[in-house]
């Protein structure tokens, strides 16, 4: 039968395929680029050494287990007013073990109406993701959560 032959030929040529392509970007990407900055230095650069207060007002939503390290959803919402006199000035997101620990800084204003920032980050390995809120009164609130990164799958 012709069809069978076609498939058989395919299976023959398959034997010459040597290795399974790797899919992990984590493996060949241990970041140490020109933007490399460790988390504690990145944090200090923003807080000027002031200690941020761990706070339930900072809701950080990240997956406990990321199904891939290339696209990890991160949503930060601050339960805080957004009035002209009292508001969240900025939200920062860090990935503690990425070579460059900084992901994004969003400088907000009362016109945002609500202090929220949502995006997707690359995580090279299992690590803490940190959300820092900078308030108009000069204080900082912080929250963190660990994300386990898995790799693998098929295709």
């Amino acid at each position: 039968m012709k069809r069978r032959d076609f498939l058989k030929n395919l299976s023959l040529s398959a034997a010459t395929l040597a290795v399974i392509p790797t899919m992990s970007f984590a493996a060949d990407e241990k970041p140490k680029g020109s933007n490399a900055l460790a988390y504690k230095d990145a944090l200090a650069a923003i807080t000027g050494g002031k200690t941020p207060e761990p706070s339930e007002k900072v809701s950080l939503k990240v997956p406990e287990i990321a199904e891939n390290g290339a696209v990890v959803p991160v949503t930060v919402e601050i339960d805080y007013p957004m009035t002209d006199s009292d508001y969240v000035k900025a939200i920062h997101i860090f990935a503690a073990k990425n070579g460059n620990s900084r992901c994004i800084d969003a400088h907000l204003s009362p016109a945002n109406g609500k202090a929220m920032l949502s995006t997707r980050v690359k995580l090279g390995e299992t690590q803490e993701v940190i959300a820092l809120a900078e308030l108009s009164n000069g204080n900082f609130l912080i929250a963190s959560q660990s994300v386990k990164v898995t790799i693998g799958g098929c295709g």
Partner: protein
Amino acid sequence: MSNSKTLIKIKPNTYKNGDVVKVSFMVMHPMETGLRKDKKTGEVIPADYIKSAKFEYNGKVFTTMNIWETLSVNPVITTYMTIDGAGSLKVTFTDSKGTVEESSEEIKPKG
């Protein structure tokens, strides 16, 4: 004008003055870290990422961002904004090579 493919989405898609709505900005961009090697040639692919964005509504800047190569390829960024009259929302972004591009969306409050 924008050479990159971009998309701005407002949610919900009908809103009125005073509403606080979600605004999402998406752009097709490789977000190269400068650390990846081309699998075929073995050469390092140069860094190429969006490094900042500015959100402007009817001429008033309400949010600015510093962005790093650690955001996912084809980045998506969402925040909120307060609807305050018809006009346009403009997102200006700059990449690590210094290219500045702009993308905008019409704001049409119902009432």
